[in-house]
């Protein structure tokens, strides 16, 4: 069935992520897929979505996708540009960001994230880029969306290091840690969508993308994945969503290659 799809699994992941921003007022955006999804949302379901980048640009309205969180166009199109201490203290920590969008190197069943280090057999530990803004985004955003491609190396049974907290050890742990935001509400992958169980906070498969089976998702997950009683199938990308996304990416490629 996959062969008949007119979109890629990455496109499906991006579209699903953009849809998750339909009701947000403000989104604290990381570079890469979160930025693509947030810009797609602004062009489809949520034209008033305020994009906040950790470089201090508030209300950026880039015409093409930025390649870094500090691209000139973000500053040029922003409602306000503030210093980095201010964006973290007055805006993120103060609870002014409805949604925080995080990527990850590894994720566990409570949506905790590792972006710091991965031990390897017979080799030195694999050094990852580190925390960036993620620990405080995970703490303070009204809710958190996590997007990452599905694989057993990503969705692991036990994290060797917790960089950013999802639900910690489970229900009640965010409250115990004093984390004000609701934490991860959706983990969106190229295979489907997982959401925390309302009682235990353990990630549960609630949605598969068209053409994906529950078994596929289970196999791509490094722990025995819980599955909701009723697993929905994601609405396929609309022509408009796909058109806008592809146009955005084409213009981005053109703009950035023209510049350098």
């Amino acid at each position, binding site marked *: 069935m996959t062969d008949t799809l007119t979109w890629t699994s990455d496109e499906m992941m991006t579209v699903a992520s953009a849809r998750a921003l339909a009701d947000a007022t403000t989104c604290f955006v990381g570079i890469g897929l979160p930025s693509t999804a947030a810009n797609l949302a602004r062009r489809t379901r949520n034209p008033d979505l305020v994009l906040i980048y950790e470089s201090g640009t508030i209300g950026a309205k880039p015409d093409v996708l930025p390649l870094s969180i*500090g691209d000139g166009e973000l500053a040029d199109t922003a409602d306000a540009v503030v210093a980095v201490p201010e964006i973290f203290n007055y805006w*993120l920590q103060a609870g002014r960001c409805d949604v925080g969008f995080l990527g990850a190197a590894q994720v566990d069943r409570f949506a905790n994230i590792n972006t710091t280090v991965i031990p390897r057999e017979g080799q030195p530990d694999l050094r990852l880029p580190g925390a960036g*803004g993620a620990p405080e985004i995970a703490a303070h955003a009204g809710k958190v969306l996590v997007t990452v491609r599905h694989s057993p190396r990503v969705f692991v049974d036990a994290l060797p290091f917790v960089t950013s907290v999802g639900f910690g050890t489970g229900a009640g742990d965010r409250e115990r840690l004093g984390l004000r935001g609701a934490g991860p509400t959706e983990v969106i992958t190229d295979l489907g969508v997982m959401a925390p169980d309302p009682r235990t906070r353990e990630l549960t498969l609630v949605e598969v993308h068209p053409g994906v089976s529950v078994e596929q998702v289970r196999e791509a997950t490094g722990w025995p994945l819980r599955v909701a009683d009723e697993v929905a199938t994601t609405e396929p990308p609309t022509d408009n969503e796909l058109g806008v996304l592809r146009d955005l990416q084409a213009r981005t490629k053109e703009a950035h290659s023209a510049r350098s």
Partner: protein
Amino acid sequence: MAEITSLHEAVAGLVHDGDIVSLEGFTHLIPTLAGHEIVRQQRRDLTLVRMTPDLVYDQMIGMGVARKLVFSWGGNPGVGSLHRFRDAVENSWPVPLEVDEHSHAGMANRYVAGASNLPFAVLRGYQGSGLAGRSDTISTVTCPFTGEELAAVAAINPDVAVIHAQRADRAGNVQLWGILGVQKEAVLAAKRVLVTVEEIVDALDPVPGAIVLPSWVVTAVAPVPGGAHPSYAAGYTTRDNAFYTAWDTISRDRDTFARWMDEHVVEPAGAHR
């Protein structure tokens, strides 16, 4: 009052072996060419401080100038790993690299405390993160009014801060605009300050979004047009995205890296004298 001088003289006078050195610039206005001059002058045992090490620290670390890195995100933005940084941490090549690792919020507040002459800053951060247990510059304080426990981070006060700005006037007042990062804080937290600029002008005409650092908080200003490459200076240059991608290949291999540095950084010594 800032002295207007050459990059060579400024680095020779301000950056010493063993110093704590902060080259700041958040994606925008990264003082890359000042980093190259530090490499050319073969400084050693530096503690390099920077929120986002980026290519400039990958280069400096790969050339062996640093014994320690204080940072919060060490990747090649939008591209992938910093291979020289990884090689130093994973394999101690060319020399071992100690690490003090924070979140962005923590690093930004460490600079704020440094600029404010406070020994620490308070934030809501690191809760539940493994970072807190790995750094002796992360602790906690209790609010004397509410009893709530919060994170505390130690101030950063570099021996030298280095930034790149759009321009300075002949008195050494510095003007920068666009994404401003933590440069003001890094400058005000440091004992000595070097600013490279795109140009020296007669008068700093006001620009929307610009800040001015008065000459008397700056030690030296050196004209270095294009000094942020492959980062950029809004109004002067654009980001060389292709170079960020190319760096992934150049830096992946030790020999390729060494050859590239030799050809583009070490041999052109005096280019900015």
